[in-house]
């Protein structure tokens, strides 16, 4: 098991290298650079700017320098505001991770609750209500849902705010109660968690239904166990495995950010920063954010694989 984990962690290094190389080549293949604009800069200005960010070097040399600096943890300067990319990524990832984890939490609680209720009330009214919610959540794109709940709950009813992230923007503010504004958190979290919640609800419902038909549940009931014990100990625990398989990729997707939701609620997150960097050809930031995505997805996949083993004793890793 330990050997397996070490091997998986070491595999992250060639993956990062491959992603860095592909991203580097692709972004330089796209027309236009960071200083391209309609009002072209005089050649002397362009040269001076390229020198400042080392874009005047041949491509292979820039690539080499980037990899060497990467091993030292230096991600270079952002062309967009002259900040260290490591600082930009650290800051925006902190915000996106809060949004993503909260949304994941909400999605898991709501999704599993809906799914379980629906399954226990198979073909009853709560089943139809639960499935109905899941269908709506899965079929309404989050930019429509986001705009809809913004207009109803913030603009019309005035219950919530729309501007920026309601959690701390800096690690240093984590314990500062003034940095938390729940009226800014609820809407983006609802908008972002609706789709994963409905997905989890459907998987949970199917899984619970399957478990409820198993012989061991009939046996448990026949033994005269209380219904609570049958549901909590025997049904839900066994129904968890398929749910876990979907939660892993969902976690990675949510924690790496949603460009649309971040843009819609002016949340200074990593997803928004990535899109901005691509459009601005902010080379170092494109590389930095892509590498963070790679790292997060690799770690999430590893954790899910390990969690399978924890939940299902039949799974062994060597």
């Amino acid at each position, binding site marked *: 098991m330990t050997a397996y984990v070490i091997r998986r962690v070491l595999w992250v290094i060639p993956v990062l290298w491959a992603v860095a190389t592909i991203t580097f080549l692709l972004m330089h293949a796209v*027309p236009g650079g960071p200083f391209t604009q309609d009002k072209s800069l005089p050649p002397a200005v362009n040269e001076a700017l390229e020198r*400042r960010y080392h874009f005047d070097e041949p491509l292979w040399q820039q690539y080499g320098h980037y990899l060497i600096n990467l091993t030292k943890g230096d991600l270079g300067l952002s062309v967009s505001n002259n900040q260290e990319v490591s600082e930009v990524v650290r800051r925006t990832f902190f915000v996106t991770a809060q949004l993503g984890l909260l949304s994941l939490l909400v999605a898991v609680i709501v999704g599993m609750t809906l799914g379980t209720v629906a399954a226990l009330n198979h073909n009853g009214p709560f089943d139809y209500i639960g499935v109905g919610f899941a269908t709506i959540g899965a079929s309404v794109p989050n930019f429509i849902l986001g705009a809809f709940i913004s207009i109803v709950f913030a*603009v019309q009813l005035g219950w919530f705010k729309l501007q*920026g992230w309601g959690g701390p923007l800096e690690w240093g503010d984590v314990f500062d109660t003034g940095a938390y504004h729940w*009226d800014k958190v609820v809407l983006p979290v609802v908008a972002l968690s609706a789709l994963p919640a409905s997905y989890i609800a459907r998987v949970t419902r199917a899984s619970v239904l399957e478990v409820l038909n198993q012989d061991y549940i009939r046996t448990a009931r026949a033994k005269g166990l209380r*219904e609570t014990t049958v549901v909590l100990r025997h049904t839900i625990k066994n129904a968890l495995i398929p749910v876990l398989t979907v939660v892993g990729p969902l976690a990675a997707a949510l924690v790496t950010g949603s460009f649309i939701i971040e843009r819609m609620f002016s949340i200074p997150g990593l997803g928004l920063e990535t899109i901005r960097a691509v459009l601005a050809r902010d080379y170092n930031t494109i590389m930095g954010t892509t590498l963070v995505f790679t790292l997060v997805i690799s770690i999430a996949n590893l954790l899910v694989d390990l969690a399978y083993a924890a939940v299902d004793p039949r799974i062994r890793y060597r």
Partner: protein
Amino acid sequence: MSVRSRWFLLFTGLLSALLVIAAACGGGTSSSDKTKTASAGGGKTPAATSAGGDQAPADQQKITIQFAEPQFYDPHKSNFEQDIGVERMLFRGLYNLTDDGSGGVKVVAEGAAGDPTVNGNVLTIKLNPNAKWSDGQPVKAADYVYGIQRECDATVASPYQYVLGAGLGEVKNCDEAFNNKVPVTEVGVRAVDDTTLEITLNKPVQTIKTILALWAAFPARKDVIEKFGDNWTQPGNIVVNGPFTMKELVPKDHVTLVPNPNWYGKKPALQQITIKFIDDLSAAYRQFQTGELMATQINATDVATAKGDSTLKDAVTVVPSGRITSVEVQMKDPVLSNFNVRLALSRAVDRKALVDAVYDGIHAPATYWVVKGIKGFQGNEPFEGKIGFNLDAAKKALADAGYPNGQGLPTLKFTTRDSPQRRAEAEYLQKVWKDNLGVNIQPEFVDSKTRSARFNSGDFQLFPGGWQLDYPDIENPLKGLFDTGGGNNKYNCSDPEIDAAFQEAANATSDDARIKAYQKVETLVVTKLCGVIPLYQDSQTYLVSPKLGGVVPNGTIDAGLPGTYAVENWFVKKS
């Protein structure tokens, strides 16, 4: 079944509890915000207000406004509208550009005590003796010397260095220093004493006061910049000489400004300006509705909706901007080099119908190139009959070019930015040219940087573009764009008559003669359609709360939001 029912009750109870908690968390601040939005509906238009006794008390003088995030807060490195908008709040130069009360622009002395004394190519400028930096030190001539030297310094790499260079500011040795031919100490600027600045030019420049009002010529503090390096614009380090100073900066989110206690001009009424960095103008629109923003840019296509909303209609502010939009034409292209083809394309477009169909009539249809608001503005009158909408003339021109009813004319490539509005515009033109002339165009939608890269390499046939003024003078939208070999002449317009008119402007000895010569340039460019087919003068569209007073929009000098050139005049009105 009864056991299961209990489960349902438990779960539904849990869900309802969650929903109630969620609703309660956000409920606390709701009512006050709604009141703010509602009361915002009843005021006057912002432009019509003036400072006076209707100011709210100081503790209410706090506003939150929308901007795109600036790249720099360092005037000598800045390139973008949002940078310049914020920098005008933080820094001021020898002169400032401001509204003249009738929509035009006037130059007023701020850091300078008055007009320069001109002696041949040498300007002597006495400084305002009251001018101070935010740390209490006087603004010395040496600070202006350092600022101008920085602008001409290749290692600073200022994108606007050229405004001080040959052809525009003509500051002696600025280009040479920028090209590393002489040290920056050789740049033609020196401090005679603490309050006397001397600037040496290559030749007399009529627009020098306007040029010296630009951010490129702002003063800078050598001691502060040398001490903190690139971090000198961080809160705590930054030393400013404008009406506001920086209190807090959270990159990607906001910057907070508070009054500079040592500002020597009119004391600002506002006690705090929070500038939120918001790119998505639809999001900003909703934040204005919730009362979280007091001023924001909005999409032109949202103006009609806002005007129809009783709580927003008084906040809608539409300002003719310093930008002209045109279809740019590659003059080296074998088909488009034919004047009659260009004329046919121009005369087949009903500009008013285009603006009405695509932009709800927000922009001003234009057959001119120099925008309204500039001294020397000629308007549509001289050009409408020559290049304006006239179907018969368009068809005749195309036939004269050898392509009757478009027969034999190859499909033309039309390279444009991929945005909903640009798409609608391209589809409109595609239909108009096809229906009216039988001309086929192939729209090609690309992202902004790809589009600019194509433009700069001359790799285009038809290309919706235009020109945004850098400074409000008639030379700015012409010089470098239409002269043979000009730096921004990507259309390859090369015409001996136009070049001669430019020469006439360069040799003009009076401002009137100079403006007349540039009008001649404009007339030749437009009537020959030399690289551009003008379509409309853009308007900037904003929501500005009627509770915000002292905002005087002026499209040719606004940066980011209306009236940012004189933010010291802004105030929150009594409710």
